[in-house]
Each structure stands twice: as C-alpha cells, then as structure tokens.
C-alpha cells in the first residue's frame, strides 16, 4: 500500500499493473513538477549567468565562468547531496523537493547559460549598432533589442534540456523525493515484482518525453523567427 492505494498481487500481472497505475501516476505528477520547477530555475539562472559572463569586467565574468564550470563539471548527485546534507549542518534545511528542484536548476543553468550566450551572440552586429546610434542604454538594448531576437532562436536547444531534466529527476529519489521511479522501486521492494512497475515507468517516461518534445516543437513553431514581436 502506498498513498493509501492498495495493490492487487493475486490476479495476474495485468490486474497488478492496473492496481499500481494510480500510484505511479502520483509519482509521475511529482516528476513533472520537479521537471518544471528545475527547468524554470535553470531558465532564469542560466540567463543571469549568460549576462554576467558577457560583462566586460573580468571581476564579474571570471567568477561566473568558474562557478558555471563547477556546476557543469560535477555530478548532479554530488550537488544534490551537498545541498541536502551539507547545508543542513549550517541549519539551512530545505524540503527534499525544493532541494531536488534547486539542484536540477543549478546544474542545468550552467548548460543553458552557454545556449543563451550562443543565441545572444548570433543576433546581428548591426542591431547593436543601430541601438547605439539611437542612444539606447545598454540595459534597454539588451532587454528590448537583443533578448527578444535571441530567445526564439534558442528555444529548440533549451527544449532539449527540458527532456534531459525530466530524465534526471529519478536521481532525486536518493534524497527521498517520491518521484515515479522511486515509487516503482518501493512497490518492487514490497511485492518482489520489479518487472511490472519498472516496465511501466519506462513506458510512462517514453510518453512524457514524447509529449515534452512535441510541446517544444509546438512552441518553437509558434515563435516568430525574427524575434518576439513588439507592437
């Protein structure tokens, strides 16, 4: 029994599968929530890192490069343990879900910073020059001229990370987040039937990633290629 839902182990695999489906779906909701939260954090933090990296002052750009390299080149699990166990020693106690979402967001923000940077650099040089000739401030140029043109170009690349984050969510089960794979393992531990729940997790994951990919393609198709419109 999990989440108050009991399973049926005595009427064959199909009945067992059907009985644990609602439990796995509960786990799937957590997986989706963690994906969205992690992705949102990564999108925002990644953009901040991309901006800080491009600041011409070395005192700003260098520490940012070091930090993002650190995030990129250390395992997600290490970062997760660090946030969950080490911070607790300093009385910073985050709930398991928040810790997990933060770890995902931080790691992927480092990847996304590079994607944003590529998009920002791909905006034609003439756009910056025109903005300068019109005496627009640096921040106005960035937010109103560069970014609206850069973001639509990088949507497919950012979207790939959405799927990657989704596939990394099971790592959060080690800090007690009850996402789909963790739930399946508990069911397996208690019923000694691992084949059915794990197969179902695989199938459900496939559905989720296909839907996520379709969503990214849809958003990409909807975005005007010349930039987000400013009326």
């Amino acid at each position, binding site marked *: 029994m999990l989440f108050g839902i009991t399973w049926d182990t005595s009427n064959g695999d199909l009945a067992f599968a059907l009985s644990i489906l609602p439990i796995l779906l509960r786990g799937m909701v957590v997986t989706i929530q963690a994906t969205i939260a992690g992705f949102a954090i990564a999108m925002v933090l990644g953009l901040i890192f991309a901006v800080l990296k491009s600041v011409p002052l070395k005192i700003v750009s260098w520490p940012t490069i070091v930090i993002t390299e650190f995030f990129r080149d250390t395992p997600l699990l290490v970062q997760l343990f660090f946030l969950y166990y080490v911070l607790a020693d300093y009385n910073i106690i985050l709930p398991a879900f928040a810790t997990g979402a933060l770890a995902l967001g931080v790691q992927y923000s480092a990847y996304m910073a590079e994607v944003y940077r590529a998009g920002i650099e791909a905006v*034609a040089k*003439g*756009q910056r*020059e*025109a903005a*300068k*000739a*019109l*005496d*627009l*401030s*640096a921040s*106005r140029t960035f937010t*109103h*001229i560069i970014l*609206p*043109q850069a973001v639509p170009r990088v949507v497919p690349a950012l979207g790939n990370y959405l799927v990657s984050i989704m596939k990394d969510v099971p790592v959060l089960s080690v800090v007690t987040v009850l996402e789909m794979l963790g739930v399946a393992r508990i069911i397996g531990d208690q019923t000694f039937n691992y084949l059915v729940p794990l197969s179902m997790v695989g199938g459900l994951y496939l559905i989720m990633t296909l839907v996520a990919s379709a969503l990214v393609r849809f958003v990409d198709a909807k975005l*005007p290629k*010349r*930039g*987000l*419109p*400013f*009326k």
Partner: protein
Amino acid sequence: MSEPIIKFEKVVKSYGNYRVLNDLDFEVARGEKVTIIGPSGSGKSTVLRILMTLEKINGGVVSVGNEPLWHEQGPNGLVPAREAHLRKMRKQLGMVFQQFNLFPHMTVLRNLTEAPMSVLGLSKQDARERAEELLQLVGLADQLQKFPNQLSGGQQQRVGIARALAMRPKVMLFDEPTSALDPELVGEVLNVIAKLAEEHDLTMLLVTHEMRFAREVSDRVCFFDQGNIKEQGTPDELFTNPKEERTRAFLKAVLEG
C-alpha cells in the same frame, strides 16, 4: 564658412598595422551637405562610424559641436571619454545604415518610437505623433503597423531614415544608404534624402557610390584615398575638372562601370 560642427584633427584609426585613417584633417560646417566618395578601404565609412561612436580612434581629436567626441576635459587636459559623455554626444547624431538595421521584431511604429520614448522621455502620444509626421515625410504613412520583413528594401531604408530623424539629430550620417538595394528601389530612397538636403539646418554626411546624386545634393564632395582626403571641392570642380590623377582614375572607373 560658418564654424564647423564636425572637426577631425590628425585622426588616426588603424586595425593592427593597417592604417584606415592616416592623420585625417576634416571639417564640416553647420548645415553643410558633404559627400564622401572613394574606393573601398579608403576609410570613408570609418569616418561615419567614428562619428557615431561605433569605432574608437587611435589618435588625434574628433569634435562635434566644438566639444571633443572621444575625449573629456580632465584636470590635466583631454582624457578618454566615459560612456556617459558618449551617450550625451550621440544624441546630436543620427545614422542610416547600408543594411538598414531595423529592429525586425518591432513594427514600423515601434521602430520609430522606441528611442524617443526610452531615451528622450517622450510620451507615447508625442512619440507617435512624431513618428507619423516622419513617416508622412518619407511617404510611408500607411505602413506603421507593418513589420520590417513585410516591406521592400527601399521602404525599409526609408523607415531607417525616419527612425534616425525621430531623435532630431543635428547631423545625419548616411553610410552607403542605397548600396544594398535593388536598382529600381534606389530612386525612392535618394528622393527622400534629397528632400532632407533642402533643410538648411540639417548637417548631412553621406558616403555613396551614386555619383550623379552626389553631384545634385552636395555642397562639397571629398574624394578619399588611402585614409585621407586626396581631393575635395564643389561637385562641379571635382566631377568636371578633377586635379588629381587618382581622382580622375577613380571617377573614370566608377562612371564607366
């Protein structure tokens, strides 16, 4: 001639070992319409780009309206300008680019109101009125809700001109404004520029390969070669009776090409 609004004194610009501008001395009077012609690589576009603060100088002094552009008055003479000074100076200049450089994600109206609102602090209403007036001037009053990619090249460039004018600059810089256009669209852009040239307050600096047009609109034509002015004079002097062999060769090549 009245006092110069633009003044280059011994200006040097180099890329590595290559000197684009070589101790250039150059003046433009208030209200004067000056055309710069010359072979590619002669530094003519660089003059405009330095004025628009898109390129730094490596030596000498550039002044706009009697104030140094790339320098500020420090306690012990001139020091390199900071961004605040550059921003103040830029307000006096407007630039029209060869590739138009309109903001593709903004409507024509937004292209024209963005800077007046965010830089000059105009209200939405005032900025819109100014934009409509200017679009009238360039003959595009009915296109203000279009996006740049819905316009022809000639129309885009006319929007580019209107966008620069919306900041009410004292000096307009035209960097080969018709070079990227199909031949049949060149005329409509030149007409607009010719109309502007009739305004005697506006100082105009034009880099172009349209010799006939240069002859019609300019008070003075400067022939640039190897980073300096090789020869200059009224259009009549320069086009009908060039003194320098280099000028003659260039004009012959361009006019017969």
